[in-house]
């Protein structure tokens, strides 16, 4: 992978972490307070972030042939199926129980919110359990991942995690 890609990922991540910290979303108490309608400020965090990102996502591919340091514009690969909605429902239960979600959990560590380390490790564990025991059927055996067309019929066979195919990012194949 090109060093420039890694550098920009680091820089963007730092800006992201700063914004999360400034918005106080790295405090689970603030998230829980939002979910209990005591302080709806998080709507402004989401709204502000979406508006800026929407403008960039819609304008950049029209104004530039390709990213300044990359080779192709990525797409968010969301699929309308049971996994997307069922997973979201499970995610919400965890979010409502703990007040923690992936970005703020990581950024909070940098801001000295050490107990979030428990949450980060638990998120890793949850992601492992999902990939190990509840992966889409097409991914439980290596050979079947290359079969085209399977994902059309069974909603649980959708492999939707692919933001960028290797063909679009050939330099990423080396790792």
């Amino acid at each position, binding site marked *: 992978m090109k060093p420039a890609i890694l550098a920009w990922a680091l820089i963007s991540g730092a800006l992201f972490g700063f914004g999360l910290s400034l918005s106080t979303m790295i405090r689970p108490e603030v998230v829980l307070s939002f979910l209990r309608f005591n302080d709806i400020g998080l709507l402004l965090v989401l709204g502000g972030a979406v508006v800026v990102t929407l403008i960039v996502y819609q304008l950049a591919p029209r104004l530039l042939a390709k990213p300044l340091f990359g080779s192709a514009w990525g797409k968010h690969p969301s699929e309308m199926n049971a996994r997307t909605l069922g997973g979201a429902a499970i995610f919400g239960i965890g979010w409502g129980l703990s007040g923690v979600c992936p970005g703020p959990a990581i950024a909070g560590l940098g*801001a000295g919110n050490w107990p979030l380390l428990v949450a980060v490790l638990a998120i890793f564990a949850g992601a492992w359990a999902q990939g190990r025991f509840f992966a889409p059927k097409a991914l439980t055996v290596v050979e079947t991942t290359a079969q085209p067309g399977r994902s059309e019929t069974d909603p649980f066979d959708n492999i939707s995690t692919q933001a960028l195919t290797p063909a679009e990012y050939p330099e990423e194949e080396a790792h």
Partner: protein
Amino acid sequence: MQQFFPNGFGHYLAGGLIIGAAVGLLFVMTGLIGGMSTVFSSTWSFFSKQPFFQQECLTGSRCWRLAYAAGLVLGGLAWMGWSASAPWQTGVTWWQLAAGGFLVGFGARMSNGCTSGHGICGLASLQLPSLLAVLTFLATAIATAQLFVWFGGAS
């Protein structure tokens, strides 16, 4: 106003705009979509031989995703230096963080997106499934958080 924003609203709006700028910057510079939950799967590809974790989209993105996550930590650190605020630790119980975190990791990866993946990147890509995912997790999160209080939970 005071009723809905007892802690003011400036820092919420500024934080949100900065987060949007961060995701936008990543896109303009690299073309990458900056959701955060995938790093919790892609990092396993370093350790697990399971076919799921050896997908090209995870092994091919694990490096920049780790750099992105490292950036988050640095951003939190930079904010602490900038705001000169003392370190602050959450009072949410460890079992809530552990159980909630597990469900968050499991659900986000099954759904293929979290608050940033569906909430920011998906909505900004005008993806209907992401909008439905956001409404779904908001509903279950609100229900869980409120029920927790009704059943006597402390925080």
